[in-house]
């Protein structure tokens, strides 16, 4: 038994779970010990995961079977995802030391965090369908409890999240039951279903919905913005931003390449989901006023790229999708951590009330800048490398995946709008002159445990972008892809970075030599609009502020623009929120049923007699026939 528990494939699951129990049971006075255990256990888990990945090099495969249910399988894909999970576990634990300091019930918090790490490792290692289902379902509970750490204001978001995620878990259960019935097998590596029967299509849809809901793709996305807004930001940085993407896309990759052979129609459907997710979510992100909610909509939007890549059905598309999953986790975690640092230091995440933090929080600013460029796909950062691979995948698939021009236009347009909304963030939070009330706050940079994970992830974005081929692609992504990857549009990250740097340097030189000396004064235009005095809360309009953009005003015009007005109005009515729409439909029927239950005894007696007559009539008819 002991030997089994210490097996290198079991240990990444059991170690964090046991450490979590220890954290939970420690007396409150030993909070230093608890902090050390939380960071230490997740760090050891990262080492264990790395050791497994290293052992796997050369295309190996490890399996472990203790009893029929406990059947684990480690291949390049699960190894890759597991390392990423453990990495984000360590960084989140470290970040939480600073961010969560001084809150209540921290023992529970670290326990949930460690359990999440362990259970996630289990979910990606599981080879038995039921084991996958168990781990998958337990992740829903830990997610619920972690969002619940946000206190009473997060309770609605926690409930909604768990209903959406739990519902998708139920579908996964149905999908597994069908797969088991059709093939008679419970081991994932023994199952491959083709779309020859309606039942198989249903199973495919069940698996896909489970994956998409976890990853937060539309139309199952609506929990992500709520959760991002209400949960503690360290939780947002860990779960919806990184871990749930890793798991959801992992399951999608397994579903598309392995468990099922998707048909043309289903792939087109998925491409449509991907393209719609990219576009719609980024449109929603553009008009948000809350930093957290804005970032959360981007966490939805970016899933679209991963779905597009994986659903394209080409090897390079899958490589791009997986690579984008990793990249997204890095920059989005970093961005949420930046938001957390801003919230902790400035006391708010409302874009209207922030400003001028670039000088006060330089490390956070630079990390945020790098991550923002990465998410917008600016070369030479990692976001560009993976988006570029996704584009190539879509082009290579061509008509195999439907109207590919539409997909690629949606993807590129989404990228541009992403940049636009991050310009808004950078401007509103860090660069613009702060509103009067913000000037009174004394803001300083956050402590080491908070800036280090943020900056580390920003640095990784740069490294993975410049050396994408030499580091992440060769070691992590390529072995995990099914099939041979050919990269037609090869992109040399390092030389391009040098050229870009040279370009920036040349620009600076020209600036220093000419314009800086004799500035030109002219009326302010922005996007063709003449600026008026900005409307800054708590301040009278004055001409002295007429050249300032409040950071949110400009983006408001989109909401009233002709083709989008209807879209935003519908979104405000929550017409795209599957949870809200579902609730409305459900309660229509519930009200009918409740109206029938009058509480009057004669009514109930009538039901009894009617039911009895029906049953007897049916039995006589069936027996006589």
């Amino acid at each position, binding site marked *: 038994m002991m030997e089994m528990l210490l097996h290198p494939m079991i240990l990444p699951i059991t170690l964090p779970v046991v450490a979590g129990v220890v954290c939970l049971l420690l007396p409150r006075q030993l909070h230093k010990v608890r902090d050390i255990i939380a960071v230490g256990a997740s760090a050891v888990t990262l080492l264990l995961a790395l050791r497994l990945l290293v052992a796997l090099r050369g295309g190996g495969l490890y399996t472990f079977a203790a009893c029929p249910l406990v059947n684990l399988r480690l291949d390049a894909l699960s190894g890759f995802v597991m390392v990423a999970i453990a990495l984000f576990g360590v960084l989140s634990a470290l970040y939480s030391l600073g961010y969560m300091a001084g809150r209540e019930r921290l023992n529970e918090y670290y326990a949930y965090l460690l359990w999440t790490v362990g259970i996630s490792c289990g979910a990606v290692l599981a080879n038995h369908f039921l084991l996958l289902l168990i781990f998958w379902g*337990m992740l829903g*509970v830990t997610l619920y409890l972690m969002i619940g750490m946000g206190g009473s204001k997060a309770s*609605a978001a926690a*409930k909604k999240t768990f209903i959406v995620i739990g519902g998708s878990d139920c579908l996964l259960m149905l999908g597994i039951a069908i797969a088991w019935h059709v093939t008679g097998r419970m081991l994932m590596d023994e199952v491959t279903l083709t779309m020859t029967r309606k039942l198989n299509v249903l199973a495919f849809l069940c698996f896909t919905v489970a994956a998409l809901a976890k990853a937060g793709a539309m139309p199952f996305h609506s929990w992500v913005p709520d959760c991002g807004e209400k949960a503690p930001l360290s939780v947002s940085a860990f779960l919806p931003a990184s871990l749930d993407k890793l798991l959801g896309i992992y399951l999608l990759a397994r579903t598309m390449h392995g468990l099922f052979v998707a048909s043309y129609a289903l792939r087109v459907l998925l491409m449509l989901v991907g393209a719609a997710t990219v576009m719609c979510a980024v449109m929603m992100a553009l008009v948000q006023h809350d930093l957290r909610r804005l970032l959360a909509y981007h966490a939805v939007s970016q899933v679209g790229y991963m779905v597009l890549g994986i659903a394209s059905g080409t090897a390079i598309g899958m490589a791009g999708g997986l690579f984008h999953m990793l990249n997204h986790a890095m920059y989005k975690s970093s961005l949420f951590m930046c938001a957390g640092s801003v919230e902790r230091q400035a006391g708010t995440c409302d874009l209207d009330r922030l400003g001028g933090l670039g000088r006060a929080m330089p490390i956070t600013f630079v990390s945020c800048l790098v991550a923002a460029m990465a998410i917008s796909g600016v070369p030479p950062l990692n976001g560009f490398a993976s988006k570029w691979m996704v584009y190539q995948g879509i082009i290579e698939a061509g008509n195999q995946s439907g109207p590919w021009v539409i997909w690629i236009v949606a993807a590129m347009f989404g990228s541009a709008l992403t940049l636009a909304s991050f310009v808004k963030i950078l401007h509103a939070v860090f660069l613009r002159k702060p509103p009067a009330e913000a000037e009174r706050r004394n803001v300083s940079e956050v402590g080491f445990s908070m800036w280090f994970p943020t900056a580390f992830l920003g640095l990784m974005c740069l490294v993975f972008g410049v050396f994408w081929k030499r580091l992440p692609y060769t070691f992590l992504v390529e072995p995990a892809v099914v099939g041979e990857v050919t990269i037609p549009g090869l992109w040399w990250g390092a030389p391009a970075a040098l050229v870009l740097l040279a370009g920036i340097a040349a620009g600076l030189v020209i600036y220093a030599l000419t314009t800086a000396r004799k500035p030109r004064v002219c009326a302010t235009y922005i996007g063709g609009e003449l600026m008026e005095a900005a409307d800054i809360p708590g301040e009278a309009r004055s001409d002295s502020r007429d050249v300032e953009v409040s950071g949110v005003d400009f983006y408001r015009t989109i909401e009233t623009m002709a083709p989008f007005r209807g879209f935003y109005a519908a979104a405000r009515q929550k017409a795209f929120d599957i949870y809200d729409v579902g609730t409305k439909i459900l309660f229509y029927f519930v009200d009918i049923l409740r109206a029938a239950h009058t509480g009057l005894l004669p009514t109930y007696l009538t*039901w009894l007699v009617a039911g009895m007559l029906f049953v007897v009539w049916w039995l006589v008819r069936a027996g006589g026939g």
Partner: protein
Amino acid sequence: MMHLVPLFMAVPLAGAFLAALPNRRLPWLPDLLGNLAMTWLTVTALSMVGHSGLCAVGDWGYLGIVLRLDGLAVLMLIAINGIGLCATLFSVSYMDRYTARGRYYSLFLLMVAGMNGVVLTGDLFNLYVFMEIAAIASYALVAFGCQHEELEAAFKYAVLGSVASALILIAVAILYGLTGNLNMTAVAVRLAADTDQPATLLAVGLLLCGFALKAALVPFHAWLPDAHPSAPAPVSAMLSGVVIKALGIYVLCRLVFNVFGATAPLLLVLRTLGTVSMIVGVMLAIGQWDMKRLFAYHSISQIGYVALGIGLGTPLGIAGGLFHMVNHSVFKSLLFLNAGAVEYAAGTRDLKRLGGLRGQMPVTANTSLVASMSIAGIPPFNGFWSKLLIVMACIEAGQNWLAVAAIAVSLLTLASFLKVQRYAFFEAAKSALTGVKEVPVLMRTAMLILAALCILTSLAVLAGWREPLLIGWAADALRGGVFGGVQ
């Protein structure tokens, strides 16, 4: 072991008599008697695992009572008496709110005696008698608070229950007329030789409807949402946890599988009633704001799962249905005890007036989280396993739409229990609830035992994955068909 079997009725009957004796000197005596009796019954029920056989009480020809112990009966005995023990433990502190402790325990033990009798008897008329003992005791217990609402609920329960009992009695009379016998095995043998008579079908239909009312399957469910919330919490736990199963589902299974033979039309009726109950119950539950009423509607829905699983008639379906029945008795009684604890501490069970109890009542909050996750079918808790088995059995039997319905209901169950969690425990605390404290130790113990069982029963599945131990044995007793039971 067989000689101990009659004591399953005798001990609680004796306890009921002693507890009802007038006694002013020793106010704690009824508590002690109730708990001792239930402890003894639980231990004895557990020791019965693996035993089966017949026991004739009094050998007077027609008048003797034949008791029959098999896998299903043992499973039911363990559930009834185990849950009963937790309920009596909980009652010790909880019943401070009421007067007439002696009568409470007396009625409680009568109800237990009736249920044990129903489960053990091998005779149709005795079945009726024991059922009436349990049912009448439960009418009285529902009215125990003697307030306006309790009396109204008990009245409705009694009227509808009596109509059902009348149907059952008529059906027993018809069967006696047809076969000249009341012994279940003998009736089964005679019916197997001579099926499809209209009179038999009428008797079968009446029995099905009568026991469907006791099991609260839609459209015979209307009494339950009034009756279950009105009783004191430990009694609600018993009513929802075991009474609807022992008097309803258990007898339906016994009759369909071991007496009439599981024919396709009978199974279809069971399945249909189950599916409709499952859907209607959860839809009515989701809009409720009274904790106990919400739980009560869920009992209808969950009993629907059980009937659906058993109505599939396949080995996997029967095992899933029986397992869900056991699991439901664990988590549903825990939920009612949680509601009782909340009411005990906060003075209300209206979700709109509760909030923030997670900080003040950690044991209640966490045990109710466990129970909520169990009933919603979230792994690794027990409800997950039985729902999984039922869904797999539906797919295996080609009933894909029923599987989809089971999945959808599972989602709605989760939604309504998250509502309870949110409004009772997670939301901001109301100012009226500032002084609320955790409940006394015995109440906590009862809740902790049941919460532990929510996890332990699922470990039992893992341990015997291929051949679920107790459940498999109970399912065999049903699958044995007409002659397969203990002869």
